[in-house]
């Protein structure tokens, strides 16, 4: 029992320290109505200026909308009744490492290209349950039915 508790403590500590060192991938820049951000199992109300991390999930209510600017200058925004996951994000120009995968489960999304797409066009894609979109220096809209 004691062992198990110690193990839990260690696992928690590792989890926390990984979190603390992890850099945000972007920040919430616009917000309207109801929207939540899920970090793992914890969901909180979205707020302007809130940092977002890889694997975070964003949900908007029937009156919700929000916009995010990523560290590579890519911008996205979602309309009401939408769910999107920041599935994969790597932006390390000094090491030439890039990756950017968004997953739109359902709802509406606007995407405006940033530096990842410019520097590594194949690193960027938007996935939905039915189809996948790759962009080349553009602005686009996607809607995926629930």
């Amino acid at each position, binding site marked *: 029992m004691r062992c198990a508790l110690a193990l839990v403590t260690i696992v928690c500590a590792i989890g926390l320290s990984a979190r603390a060192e992890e850099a945000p991938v972007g920040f919430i820049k616009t917000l309207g109505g109801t929207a939540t951000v899920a970090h793992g199992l914890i969901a909180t109300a979205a707020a302007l200026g809130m940092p977002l991390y890889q694997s975070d999930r964003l949900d908007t209510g029937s009156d919700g909308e929000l916009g995010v600017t990523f560290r590579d200058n890519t911008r996205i925004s979602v309309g009401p009744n939408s769910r999107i996951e920041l599935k994969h994000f790597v932006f390390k120009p000094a090491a030439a490492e890039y990756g950017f995968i968004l997953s739109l489960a359902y709802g509406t999304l606007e995407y405006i290209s940033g530096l990842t797409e410019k520097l590594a066009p194949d690193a960027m894609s938007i996935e939905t349950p039915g189809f996948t979109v790759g962009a080349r220096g*553009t602005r686009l809209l996607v809607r995926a039915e629930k």
Partner: protein
Amino acid sequence: MIMRVMASAVLLVLSGCGLPADVVILLPNENGTVGKLVVHEGGSTAELDKPLTAVDAGSEASLRNVFTTQRPDVESEFAGALDAAPRAPLVYILQFQPGLAELDPRSRGDLAAATAGAKGTSYADISVIGHADATGTDPYNLALSLKRAETVRDALVAAGVPSDIIEITYHGANNPLIPTPRGVPEARNRRVEVTIR
């Protein structure tokens, strides 16, 4: 007459339908240029390269249905997402004196503009990236590019920009704006890039 009634009925039905439930639309960029996009579904792909064209992504077969959208349909069905789009990041490039972490006097105006941009942006996050040209050794250039970035960070902070929203990185001579052989001085590469998101 009957034909006309039928024709308007068809039109009415078409406009009432609006856009497909699963759809991808290519928009022109804010600067007027147009990029392109590819939609993959099963083993099929559809490519769009003209502004306001769209594809019905409902099924692999429907990918063949490439059409031109009407602006009012797009604006009403994507109203929330379009309304929430963040504004474009502001980017400033400040030049430095050779071998020094001192601003080139010609870049003073741009530093003032960057400072105003930073203070005028709510919920800003700012990146300050230092660079050097290809004169000097790699360790020297890395250290110099860091000092240049710190000079700009300090100027922003002195003007009242909170330091915790500024992220500093430095690349030495590894990311030149204008590629040159080693040892060649190039004013445009002696720079700090400030991005205000």
